[in-house]
């Protein structure tokens, strides 16, 4: 059975690295894996999604609307935007962080402050202060890795040797903080 994970965020938030580590782990665990992301102009502060599919044999590299087992949103409004991709009964993890887009900054629209309430009405939702947790670990940039930890726990991927995956993919000085970030993310959605 193919499993589908959608990572939604804003260009520059690190969705791509989180997706890379995730897919590397899945590959080493023996799954067929496909991942899709759009690069280019959307990187300039636009909304971005990375789509990860894994299972015995995966055909399409993209997730259908209504097809995601899990959505991990790096920003609250992006969680609301991506919700149409969630399979009914699927899981949502949201970083408790808001980044207004340019039309909001220019005063043409209001930020949807009720985003979390709206999502909670429809889906099993966990709100994680991943940005703050990363800051506390000593580097705000590992927010994406905290969120990777939530995926590992939610999707039951604890059996994969993430320590080795991190070592193979990040600079030696950052291995420890990345491992702490994964653990923090796992603990945050654990239990």
């Amino acid at each position, binding site marked *: 059975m193919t499993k589908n994970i959608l990572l939604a965020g*804003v*260009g520059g938030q690190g969705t791509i690295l989180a997706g890379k580590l995730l*897919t*590397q782990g899945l*590959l080493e665990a023996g799954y*067929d*894996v*496909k*991942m*899709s*992301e*759009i*690069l*280019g*102009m*959307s*990187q*300039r*502060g*636009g*909304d971005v999604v990375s789509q990860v599919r894994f299972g015995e044999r*995966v*055909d*399409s*590299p*993209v997730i*259908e*609307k*209504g*097809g995601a087992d899990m959505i991990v949103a790096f920003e609250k*409004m*992006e969680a*609301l*935007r991506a*919700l*149409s991709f*969630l*399979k*009914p009964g699927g899981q949502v993890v949201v970083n408790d962080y808001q980044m*207004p*887009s*340019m*039309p*909001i*900054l*220019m*005063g*043409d*629209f*209001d*930020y*949807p402050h*009720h*985003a979390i309430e*709206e*999502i909670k*009405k*429809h*889906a099993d939702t966990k709100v994680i202060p991943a940005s703050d947790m990363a800051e506390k670990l000593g580097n*705000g940039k590992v927010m994406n890795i905290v969120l990777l930890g939530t995926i590992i726990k939610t999707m039951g991927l604890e059996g994969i040797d993430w320590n080795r995956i991190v070592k193979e993919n990040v600079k030696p000085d950052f291995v420890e903080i990345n491992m702490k970030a994964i653990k923090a993310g796992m603990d945050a959605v654990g239990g």
Partner: protein
Amino acid sequence: MKVLWTGNEAVARGAYEAGVVYASAYPGTPSTEILENLATYPEILSEWAPNEKVALEAVIGASFAGGRTMASMKHVGVNVAADPLFTFAYTGVNGGAVIISADEPGQHSAQNEQDNRNYAKAAKIPMMEASDSQECLDMIKAAFDLSEEYDVPMFFRMTTRLCHGKSVVTPSSRKEVGIKSFVKNPGKYVMVPGNAKVRRMDLEQRLSRLKEYSENCPWNRAEYHNSSVGVIASGPSYHYAKEVFGETASYLKLGFTNPLPDHLIQEFCSKMETIYVVEENDPYLEERVGMLGFACQGKDLFPKMGEMTPDVIRKALYGTMLPQIEYDNTTVVPRPPTLCAGCPHRGFFYQLGKKKNVMISGDIGCYTLGFAKPYNAMDSTVCMGASFSMGHGAQQVFRQTDSGMRVVSVLGDSTFFHTGINSLITVVYNKSNTVNVILDNRITAMTGHQENPGSGKNVKGDPAPMMDIEAIVKALGIQYVRTIDPNNLEQVSQTLDEFLALEEPSVIITRWPCALKKLSREDREEFQGAFVEKNRIEEETCIGCKKCIRCGCPALVFNKEKRKTSIDSLQCVGCDVCTQLCPTGAIKKEGK
């Protein structure tokens, strides 16, 4: 060993394994990473060319000289390279040659959605289309062998999802094929009409042999399941269709798509009761199926535009998609791409947008975002390098009216080298008086920071001759040239006013690095103080007038409750554009 690679990584690996010795490209989403990956293999001499035509011509020369060689470009790049492409089919190759076309169904980063499979047909060049990364690697290797065996350049068509999507690949090792010797052969390589007519006839024979190959090759295959519903597809559409139809349909998967395998198509179609042709953009396969006398469902059912993803197929077939959560998404605000905090284009466009009775002729790059609010500083964008020439044509017509309209034409440093330089020649030669602006941010920014002839480095990051834009435009005959700091709002405005009053053509060069650029030692020397000190807003001095907000910087956030603006220090790089807009001097350097 299994790896998870993008199609671009797999194509580069395929070229490496096939023994390629030379590659050339111009950056363009979604093809850019192909050359970047090729450059990581020391065996392949990889180069950024100033444009796609130059890249392909260099590749043709490399092929004639006997080396295996590859050019890669985005779909619209093939338009630029079309001139050599069509005649390359006639000459054929010496060393094997492959041209990559990276198309953009869905237009994620492009000005149009052209289907370049039509180029293969029009240029009479054999074409292959992969459906995943492993096929990219395998097909590219085969393409080099076919190129040499059949004496043809090969066209390899990719799409965004294939280029940037990752799937599992098993790489192997490089086959050293060596460099063939060059033997003078004007009949083959000098395309004067007399020789070209002969090669034209020869090309038909080569294509006819390739048609036989197409009928029997491993890239075109039927997969029969216990079903009389048949799906014909190429590229990633094959996987999309499989996701929806599963084993309820039989498939004709086509990977070698010019010339198409007519007999194979006939054999497949004659066994099916219902035939669907699933392809992105134009009815390229569908028309052939129809021509062979089979009724099929294609573009009457599936959309002509956008990506043919599973939900699109499902909706077209059944009228519904997978069950989805119904929720209120009306409050979700668009998040369009924006100029980054500290972008050197911001100050320039902020001032340019205020000029009255001016048409602004734009071009392709990050700076195209100057068209959007709050700048509203771009009136046209068509293709690479067009701003100077379109602006020239517009000015020549405005001159024949009493509108008094003046034209400012704007492009970036890499776009100037691409084709803008030719356009500036017509401006000078035909005595225009447009104001031509080169936004020199010291890198090719939008495609992800590639070096260019003005940046002083090559694709490997090694030192390279640095073209002097000011000297070039002067040499072309422009008398009024000024290099300015785009973050200095007064200087921008004054220079524009001064040059708009001229009867002669002029060039303004704005010179400041992209805020995301990793600065070189030379950059640090030239742009002292760049991105060193961030700004902050002194809350008690801010009067909440929002004048700073109007420069459209994503680091400036207005708090409605407090009626004050603040600066996101994570984003701010201290460009000081907002500082110049503040009437009360509330914007200060951090720590001061």
